[in-house]
């Protein structure tokens, strides 16, 4: 069985659909794509799709991933899995904001969810002054430990989440389509335990702020010596992305 990895965006209005809705959008798109998608058994067969880390409803992304299993037929000619071909084929099948940026045939291996060790985020904050956020960022980075209170089984537990934040900085205009250049921060969050959610971090940095826009810009896996993306965006597909947005 061949496995195809697809990297795509979730930008703009479509960010308000949930994970299950997005899965259904993909299911219909895959059915229409004409690709020999493998299906589950049973009364209502579904395409065999494996999604990466879930993205909260309302968050945007420049790097979501989906793995799809394909049937290798011996008698039918193998369809083209060339990236440009597939990017063009998916474009009319997906709603505005969901655009395929990269596609590749991959080795079957660790699931995406297990493999991803960190994500990069950009967050646009409302209701808070840049200087206040800048101060909070500096304090956070200078601290040896940052204690977060979580409620677990009706009990408040304290966890040190400092190590979850690998990078954190205040930035100006983030350049994402439709974003206002208010107070934006950029950060990398590790996925290892205890984990830290974007909203939890905002609560720690600037409890009075609301996260107007949140975008996952990258997901990272361990590579040879350095971290790398599960699928990098080539120039050609970056062009396609620009056209789609």
């Amino acid at each position, binding site marked *: 069985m061949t496995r195809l990895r697809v990297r795509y965006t979730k930008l703009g*209005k479509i960010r*308000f*659909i949930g994970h299950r809705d997005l899965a259904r959008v993909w299911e*219909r*798109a895959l*059915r229409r794509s004409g690709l020999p998608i493998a299906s589950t058994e049973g009364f*209502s*067969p579904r395409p065999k799709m494996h999604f990466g880390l879930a993205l909260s*409803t309302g968050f945007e992304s420049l790097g979501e991933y989906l793995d799809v299993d394909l049937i290798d037929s011996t008698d039918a000619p193998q369809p083209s899995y060339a990236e440009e071909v597939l990017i063009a084929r998916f474009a009319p*099948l997906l709603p505005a904001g969901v655009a395929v940026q990269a596609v590749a045939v991959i080795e079957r291996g660790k699931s995406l969810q297990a493999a991803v060790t960190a994500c990069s985020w950009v967050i646009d904050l409302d209701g808070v002054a840049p200087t206040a956020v800048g101060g909070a960022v500096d304090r956070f980075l200078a601290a040896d430990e940052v204690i977060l209170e979580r409620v677990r089984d009706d009990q408040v537990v304290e966890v040190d989440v400092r190590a979850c934040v690998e990078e954190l900085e205040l930035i100006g205009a983030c350049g994402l389509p439709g974003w206002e250049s208010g107070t934006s921060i950029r950060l990398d969050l590790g996925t290892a335990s205890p984990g830290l959610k974007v909203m939890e971090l905002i609560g720690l940095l600037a409890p009075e702020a609301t996260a107007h826009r949140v975008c996952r810009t990258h997901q990272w896996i361990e590579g040879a010596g350095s971290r790398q993306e599960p699928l990098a965006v080539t120039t050609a597909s970056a062009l396609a992305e620009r056209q789609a947005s």
Partner: protein
Amino acid sequence: MDEIWPRLERLLPRVQKPARYIGCEDGAQAPEPQPEQVGWLLVYPDTYEVGLPNQGLQILYEILNEHPLSWAERGYAPWSDLDQLMRQEGLPFFSVDTHRPASAFDIMAFNLSAELTYTNLLNCIDLAGIPLRTAHRSADTPLVLAGGHCTYNPEPLADFLDAVVLGDGEEVIAEITAVVHDFRSAGRTGGSRVDLHRALAAVPGVYVPSLYDVEWDGPAVRSVTPRYPGVPERVEKRTVADLADWPYPRRQLVPVTEVVHDRLNVEVFRGCTRGCRFCQAGMITRPVRERPVQQVRQMIADGLERTGYDEVALTSLSSADYSGIAEVVSETVRSASSGRPVSVSLPSLRVDAFTVGVAAEIGRARRTGLTFAPEAGTWRMRQVINKLISDEDFDGAVESAYASGWRRMKLYFLTGLPSETDEDTLGIAEMARRAVSIGRRHTKGASVTVSVGGFVPKPFTPFQWFGQNTVAELQRKIGLLRDDLRRAGGVQLKWHDPKATLAEGIVSRGDRRLGAVIEDVWRNGGVFQEWSECFDIDRWTAAMERHGLSIDWYAHRHRTEDEVLPWEHLSAGLHKDFLWQDWRDALDAVGLEDCRWTPCYDCGACTGYGIEHIVASAVPPAGGSQGTGMSRPVAVPVRLVPSGAGA
């Protein structure tokens, strides 16, 4: 364009199900209107999930956007959480296509499918910033229109609607567009709204309530008469003579979030002449107009290809009656086995073995169980309502269903029907028990869910003269069934809240005085009345009392032949004497055969409009005796073996 979105997107993280408000459907349009074009905002006054699949609205959406003089977008009632935020932030009612405010449109047109959405309609008008009452609107306020089944008695909404369309909308919308276009290009002036109203009233099928005077005779209506020459004394419904001329929707909307009926829907025919006496939809949509089989096939093939759906519903009031049903079903299922699996659903199953045979071929329905609607528990009662399902039909359908591998079955019944005795009510329990015992011969776990709804008499049906059962009486009947079924294994009883049945009953045959009541309920927070978590009968009873109106008068009283009914100045083509005779026949438990295959009764629906049935088959479908004049199924020409998984 998009002027609402930047403000709306800040509110959406704070509401449940934000995907309701984003549009983004496949098939959605982003019109770029020219100044001379007339803009329509088509609104379904319930949640997005309920409203999006509405086929009537989607058909008009496409036709209006294809027409050179018009453009159209869609809107749905915001749930209470967003409603509250919109009011706080001063955000008006908006379209989901390009998020334009309602004020950017010339017409706000509502689809009215259920009486309990009326308060939502008021709420949407108010959110749009449009004065609630037509009397307070100026020449540049958007027109508020309505169409759909409930508009055959729009009197309770008379104060709020500028105009109402009766019947099929496909043709009349272009005529309304032309009137508004001409009116606008002539230049609107203050006080000219009545001129616009008069021009609209000249369009056949369009009723303008404010151009009529109602005279009262105590609590009763004495007369409803036009105030100006040229305004028709009686407004006749519009009927599309041939569905083949309207292969819509061509691009059914595919939502990005879950909605009801989330599948491809292809309308196989419109109208129904089975003649079920409780069924308003059947009465007001006559005659039967079948879509040619070839066109149905094409719409299924194109639709599946374009949407990526794996399920198609063949819609109509009774799809097993479609002449080409067996052909279309087996072809769709067969074509699917060569490509991706496709299942077919028939939302309204007839109760007979033939239908089960078709359903068995479809296969998929077994996941959810089969649904039948015998509607009444005894043969006598079914003759009264003219739903001519014999006990043998029923047993045969149940037998084939369980023999074909189904394990569960849902049965729909009405209670509170004219002349219903306790024996008739208990007949419901009897049928349920019989179904379980037939089922147990095939499978140990056979079970039946019985769903009972209280009957609401509707205008333009033979039962329009009947006094609806009180809440207490309906509760008593449900209690009878509950007690009787207490120890019946395998039967689960569900019922519709009789209090909601009462509210629906008050409105469905109401007159203009009810406008104040609907407004009162709305002002006191009564929106989404179709949703049990939002419904409270006390709002309705209190409002009736505040306005000095009697619930008994509106809902529970039997009407007499000479009474002027509040909707008599409107017409669905049906002659009043036909309906009255049918009412007398009902009380004598005399059934009436389907006029599609037997001689015409001159009800008026064809004869009055110079149209006729379009039915491909000259003989009744095999296997059903309901109203077809046939005795009992002789042979069932479809296989009763369930097909394999998804093939």
